[in-house]
């Protein structure tokens, strides 16, 4: 029989340390839903999603109960809509967003990702239509998430798309100003986007993926934080080992849930995304892990090194625990969704510049950051370009999810609610980047040797 200590440790992690499965996300290919007639296309999309995912929530809840571990979110990702909608004779794809929203409601999932376009090298007519549909789509739907990939290590950075995304983000914030620009929380701009990411808002079902697949995202900042409390003052070798062991345990949980869910749904199991995804709850923060390593406040000198160690150790521990690892895999640093990050940003220690540096060594990028409402579209584009450059040069995924909160100034707070949390409005540089962004064109793909 298992020993008592092991059983109690698992229960303790779940009950007191916020260990949970953050999401099981079903990826569904919509490539067979193309139609020249927009309403027929919408009908096919609705039918396919509701057919494939009809049992997703039910099975998720069953597993939750049987294993006694919470599965916080059940979600769906679909083929980037720009690829599906290209055949449609239509000027706007807002109707498709509404269809996705309706399908998500029917299935009972809280988010559906894939109102997306992949434009790292250039935009097709459909890509432009999709991008220009984003503001209205974000305003008139509740559960649809959108993402646009503007750069990659192989293709460089599409600066025309970067410039347009600055304007789109501004417009999305304005059109959803009643909710403090909430629409922007559902919109991510990527470089090197991955095809099997289960986490929102950036999930989409890539073209290299099978017909239908199940991906799992684990979480567990609270568990790692607690484990580190038992090795206070010890060298980093011990810290790294402790994180690895904890990440292994957390990931095994994701693996077993993923395999079980895919068996019951009759859908192949894709990957476990080894991410440390924080929530606004106290005790579930990535920032507090960094502080536990000996930093007074997250964002002070040493934060990047601490995060690099954390991110790497999580991967090393998790890789052995799962037969397929993928997605974004790493520590997330979404400001509004992390109680410690919020506190650090409010104290002024955690700045946009430091966050940018942190994104060089961890998963994703500038995530859930509120900036003043009068931030120009060009400045937002320039922030996107900086992040995309980090991703492009370092061969990693980076992203920007930024909220230019309408009518808010530095020091105000933006309330997103639920898992999205609340974000203090952070200052941006007031000096213009307009002429830089106005150049357009493409930043060439980087050389992959002579690394320095």
């Amino acid at each position, binding site marked *: 029989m298992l020993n008592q200590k092991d059983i109690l440790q698992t229960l303790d992690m779940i009950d007191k340390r916020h260990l949970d499965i953050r999401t099981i996300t079903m990826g569904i290919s919509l490539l067979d839903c193309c139609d020249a007639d927009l309403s027929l296309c919408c009908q096919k999309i609705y039918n396919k999603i509701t057919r494939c995912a009809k049992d997703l929530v039910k099975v998720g809840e069953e597993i939750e109960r*049987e294993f006694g571990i919470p599965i916080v979110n059940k979600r769906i990702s679909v083929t980037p809509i720009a690829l599906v909608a290209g055949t449609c004779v239509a000027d706007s794809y807002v109707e498709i967003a509404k269809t996705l929203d309706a399908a998500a409601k029917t299935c009972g999932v809280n988010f559906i990702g894939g109102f997306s376009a992949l434009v790292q090298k250039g935009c097709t007519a459909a890509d432009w239509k999709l991008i220009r549909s984003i503001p209205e789509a974000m305003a008139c739907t509740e559960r649809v998430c959108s993402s646009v990939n503007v750069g990659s290590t192989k293709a460089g950075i599409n600066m025309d798309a970067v410039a347009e995304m600055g304007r789109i983000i501004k417009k999305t914030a304005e059109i959803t100003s009643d909710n403090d620009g909430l629409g922007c929380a559902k919109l991510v701009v990527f470089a090197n986007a991955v095809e099997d990411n289960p986490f929102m808002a950036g999930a989409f079902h890539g073209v290299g993926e099978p017909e239908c697949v199940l991906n799992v995202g684990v979480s567990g900042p609270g568990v790692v934080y607690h484990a580190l409390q038992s090795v206070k003052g010890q060298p980093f070798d011990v810290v790294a080992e402790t994180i690895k062991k904890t990440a292994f345990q957390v990931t095994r949980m994701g693996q077993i849930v993923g395999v079980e869910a895919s068996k019951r749904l009759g859908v192949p199991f894709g990957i476990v995304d080894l991410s440390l995804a924080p929530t606004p709850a106290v005790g579930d923060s990535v920032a507090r892990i960094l502080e536990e390593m000996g930093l007074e406040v997250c964002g002070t000198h040493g934060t990047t090194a601490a995060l690099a160690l954390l991110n790497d150790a999580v991967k090393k521990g998790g890789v052995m625990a799962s037969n397929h690892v993928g997605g974004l895999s790493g520590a997330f640093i979404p400001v509004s969704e992390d109680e410690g990050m919020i506190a650090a940003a409010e104290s002024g220690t955690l700045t946009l510049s430091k966050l940018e540096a942190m994104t060089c060594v961890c998963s994703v990028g500038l995530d859930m950051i509120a900036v003043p409402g009068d931030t120009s579209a060009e400045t937002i584009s320039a922030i996107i370009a900086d992040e995309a450059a980090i991703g492009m040069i370092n061969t990693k995924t980076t992203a920007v999810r930024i909220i230019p909160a309408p009518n808010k100034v530095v020091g105000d707070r933006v309330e997103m609610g639920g898992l999205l949390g609340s974000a203090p409005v952070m200052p941006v540089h007031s000096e213009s980047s307009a002429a830089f962004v106005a150049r357009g064109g493409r930043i060439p793909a980087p050389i992959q040797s002579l690394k320095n």
Partner: protein
Amino acid sequence: MKAIVTVVGKDRVGIIAGVCIKLAEYNVNVLDISQTVMQGYFTMMMAVDVSGCTLPLAELCKAMEQVGNEMSLSIKVQREDIFEAMHRI
């Protein structure tokens, strides 16, 4: 299929009896029990076989949770796999 039943709460007369009677009602076979009382708190772990259980596992979990509420105890039934996965390579 095996499951682990954990029972935690303030110690008093009849906890094991109460839990076992309920499990027997659902045709759940107890394979192993380990139990301690720490500072007045009763902690029991049971390995049980649920292959012959008259309820689907998810409903057994719910039913036992309900029994726990009635007895002012925390009773959890979880598939054994989750502990195995976490603590065995």
